[in-house]
């Protein structure tokens, strides 16, 4: 297992990712310009706001410990990575013992796994799912294709770097990473959550304009609200 860990080189995503201005959405109300007037009435147009950590520090540390030990995973199987996720729950790997369980709905999940390459079409669904999750929420990019495109580097309809569109907390590289690598990644995510280093949901809100600009640059037909509550 240690050898595997050494070879994995679990990376921190913050290096090299250009941040936005960190000011959050420009106004409290979103334009929702992609929707027709009739549809605009149906969707919430409030902009997301960042949340503060719990005020006494030990309380935040306690909750971070809880979050790390009760990770509810929404596995977004975009590509071949989905097949590596399934064995996690079997008796050979048994992710349950680490407090990891799969949730079928984004509303209840706290960890989003983007499992492999994502085409532009799928990115739209990933964004919707991510925004419907309730904070604090964490994103794992699984496989080399979420880091630099991998074997899809020169594909015309897949994105290359996931962290230009979503705040990724942890990458697990490989093509594809085996379930052992996934478990090692989960352990690393646990360590980061406990250390209070996973602030992705707030980063997404603070750099909202930057993320939205990137997303709208690749998704030509933007027919959904600017933030999917």
């Amino acid at each position, binding site marked *: 297992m240690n050898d595997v860990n050494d070879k994995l080189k679990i990376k921190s995503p913050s290096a090299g990712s250009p941040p936005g201005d960190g000011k959050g959405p420009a106004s409290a109300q979103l334009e929702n310009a992609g929707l027709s007037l009739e549809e605009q009435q149906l969707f919430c147009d409030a902009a997301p706001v960042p949340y503060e950590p719990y005020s006494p520090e030990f309380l935040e540390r306690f909750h971070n410990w809880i979050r790390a030990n009760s990770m*509810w995973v929404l596995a977004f199987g975009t590509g071949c990575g989905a097949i590596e996720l399934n064995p996690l729950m079997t008796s050979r790997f048994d992710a349950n013992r680490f407090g990891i369980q799969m949730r079928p709905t984004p*509303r209840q999940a706290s960890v989003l796994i983007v499992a492999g390459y994502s085409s532009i079409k799928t990115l739209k669904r990933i964004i919707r799912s991510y925004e419907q999750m309730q904070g604090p929420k964490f994103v794992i990019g699984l496989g080399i294709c979420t880091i630099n495109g991998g074997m899809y580097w020169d594909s015309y309809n897949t994105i290359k770097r996931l962290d230009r569109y979503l705040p990724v907390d942890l990458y697990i590289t490989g093509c594809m990473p085996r379930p052992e690598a996934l478990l090692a990644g989960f352990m690393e995510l646990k360590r980061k959550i406990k250390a209070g280093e996973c602030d992705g*949901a707030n980063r997404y809100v603070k750099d909202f304009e930057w993320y939205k600009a990137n997303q709208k640059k690749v998704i030509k037909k933007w027919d959904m609200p600017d933030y999917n509550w």
Partner: protein
Amino acid sequence: MDWGISIFYYLVTVVVVLVYGLFLYAFIAKTMARVQGRVGIPIYQPFLDIIQTYNKRTAVTHGVMFDLGPVFRLAGGLGTLAFIPVIYGSEVFGNFHFAGDLLLVMYFVFFGQLGMALGAGESGHPYASMGVSRGLAQMTAFEVPFALAVIAVFVQYDTASINEIVAAQQGSIYNWTLFTNPFAVVAAMFAFLGMSMYPPFDLVTAPNEIPIGPPTEYHGPYLSFLQTNRAIFAGAKLILFMNLFFGGATNLPVMMVKLWAIYMIPVLIGVAFPRFKVENSIRFFLGVPTLVGIMAVLYVQYWGT
């Protein structure tokens, strides 16, 4: 007795049943994991899950009924528990039992599901509506054998007071309804399979078919209400079945062992059978279990003691 003390005792009961219910859930999950050759969840995992969901930092609402859905559900669980004497003859765990409490409890058992149906309906999610319609259809079906079994108990003991029903079963194991009227117990246990949401009757919240039914849109504090209620309500239902059919309990250890044993019945059947479609489960409940229920009523009326 003073109302203040009664309510305090009731709160003690709720905490005991909640803690026991959560540990029971984890214990069963761990047992199933061991059977499958896994380590399984830590025994305290349900507590962490409830705290984790309760302390989500953001939440969205879909309207007033959406907010009230989990409240109704929890009220259903607490209401069911409030009128069932948990331990026979105990002052602390006696709760607010009275002469006709079984009728009220019968209502409370289904109250939560109806409230939840309203809340889930307002969430607007198609899977939630599908889950609700399946759940209510299945509930209507398994209520028939359950009601027949309870009617048989009414006739047999000539009372609608749970306390008196438990009192009549004391003395010997052969005084339990299990031995005096086995048909009623079989019919009620069939209904219990439907209530307990294990296979083959778990289509309502089947995660890989309609993720995950009525609570699809529920998250954060709403979900923690539902999780809390799952432990309390499961405990209350088990206690009701223990009181009606398995002789009740005179102290806490006996109660815990009996509840575990009753809970293992749907678990063991659940691990062995695949999932029914909802039309199959309705046909099933209206078939053999209903016939057994009718036999139970006829048995106590004409041949019973």
